[in-house]
């Protein structure tokens, strides 16, 4: 394995050792289990199982129409929040703990270190996100087989489900890198989380309200286009999914460049 590969592996191990990351995964698994139990229990009376109940497998992912009825979108929402929190924790905690000094004594190239950190966050968020979506959907299987149906799950549906899961995993990975980068710029986990929350819930909504024409450039609107891979309905603008994805990648690249240049120039002057 080359030295960057070793660094990447070390960064992954380090991230997985963070208690916060482990707790978030446990929490996500518990949420999946709870979803499965609730889906099963609520489907025991067939008269109360509507067509949009999760035990009807086709509701996992409804292609077209923005995927609005899909239960997978619920998972996506939690994954994005989880990725932001874990990424901020991985990027920010080292500054508080002072371990950044220790790591830089072993890897003095900050560009390589940051690249490895961002890459490891992306890879782990993608893989964990993908796995958690599978667990989430699989948790409803007892309900599907005993009380529900698999009607409408043909080959195209499976491909659509796979692609949607992959897109959600990609968005999760991008959010994790974004959080790592902002935490690196701010040298702080809380700063990253507050920054992301303020941008997503206040700044973007304000901009969308005051300048509807600019909404096409907002992260939320572009994410909402990429996940279902279809232009937003009733949005007042036409934004193809490829353009939305390119926009998100561009924003991420800008943040990564800013984070790298900040990290490279910053004095690591005190432990904690």
């Amino acid at each position, binding site marked *: 394995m080359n*030295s960057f590969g*070793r*660094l990447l*592996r*070390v960064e992954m*191990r*380090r991230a997985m*050792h*963070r*208690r916060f990351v482990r707790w978030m995964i446990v929490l996500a698994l518990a949420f999946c289990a709870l979803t499965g139990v609730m889906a099963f229990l609520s489907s025991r009376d067939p008269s109360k199982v509507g067509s949009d109940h999760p035990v009807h497998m086709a509701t996992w992912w409804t292609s077209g129409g923005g995927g609005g009825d899909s239960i997978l979108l619920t998972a996506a929402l939690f994954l994005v929040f989880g990725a932001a929190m874990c990424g901020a924790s991985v990027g920010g905690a080292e500054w508080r*703990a*002072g*371990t*950044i*000094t*220790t790591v*830089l*004594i*072993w*890897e*003095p*190239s900050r560009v390589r270190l940051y690249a490895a950190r961002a890459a490891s966050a992306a890879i782990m968020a993608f893989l964990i996100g993908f796995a958690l979506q599978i667990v989430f959907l699989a948790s409803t299987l007892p309900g599907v087989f005993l009380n529900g149906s698999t009607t409408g799950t043909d080959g195209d549906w499976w491909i659509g489900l796979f692609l949607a899961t992959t897109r959600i995993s990609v968005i999760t990975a991008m959010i994790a890198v974004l959080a790592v980068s902002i935490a690196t710029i701010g040298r702080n986990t809380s700063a990253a989380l507050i920054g992301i929350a303020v941008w997503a819930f206040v700044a973007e909504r304000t901009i969308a309200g005051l300048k509807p024409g600019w909404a096409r450039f907002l992260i939320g609107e572009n994410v909402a286009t990429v996940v279902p891979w279809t232009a937003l309905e009733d949005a007042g603008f036409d934004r193809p999914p490829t353009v939305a994805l390119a926009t998100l990648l561009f924003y991420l690249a800008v943040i990564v460049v800013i984070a790298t240049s900040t990290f490279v*120039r910053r*004095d*690591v*002057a*005190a*432990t*904690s």
Partner: protein
Amino acid sequence: MTAVIEIEGLRKEYRRRGRTGKVAVQGLDLSVPEGGVFGFLGPNGSGKTTTIRCLLGLVRASAGTMSVLGRRSPGDLRATMPSIGAIVETPALFPTMTGRENLELLGAMNGIGPLRVALSLESVGLAYRADDKVNKYSLGMRQRLGLAAALLKDPELLVLDEPVNGLDPAGIREIRQLLQRLGAEGRTVFLSSHLLAEVEQTCDSVAIIDDGRLVLSGRVDEVLAAASKPSVLVGLDDTDAGFLVLAQAGLNVERDGALLRIRIQPSDASHVTKLLADAGLYVNELRPDAVSLEDLFLSITGRDATEEVAA
């Protein structure tokens, strides 16, 4: 002798928004010879840690040039860092991992395997707690683990900033012996410490900085010899009578607590004992009045090195 660390005109100014910048190091020149233990001393805020951070690329120098192991720093640090082991202030390690896991994680960056990890833990006397989590370690044990991490690369150069902080006397002695052994093996140990007696016992050479500038540098024995004014200390039952006898004999004598200090070469001490014995006064203590590193440090900096720990 080849210099392992060469610093010329190092200056570091920390900029502060809206205020005058703080100059931590101003025009420091320093040369650390290859092999042995080199003590780097200075009072609190004199710029020791900033110098070390600049050398290791943790802090960007405002001006000056540095080289480590014959290559530019920080420009060539990627090439030299695998040969440098370092502790900067209190070693910060990953608290939820065991000591062994910490070293394995760091070692993995340089392709260092578990055998070398075990040897490093053994060399600092931490093998028996290697599989405990670091958040259960005492400060002294964390310090040992930091030292084990520094030794993990089997380094040519060890840069240690206060490596015996938090260690008990037995631990300090162990580490002293370890550092001396490493120095004797031909490695260079660059040691920053406030424990001046330790530095005097451990180091071959020393540099003292104050206000970010070098004020003294050289071999410990030469530096102390140059600073010494030859004299002997004499203990007597009747100090007052002894003082009169020696003063009447034309010797430069002064009181130093319960002892008398006589300004003569230690090799001429027999002259003093003869004068006193002829007057019926018998010596119960006689020793050369050697200058310690602590005395020298205080006379140069006007400050007590131990103050920096409390500060």
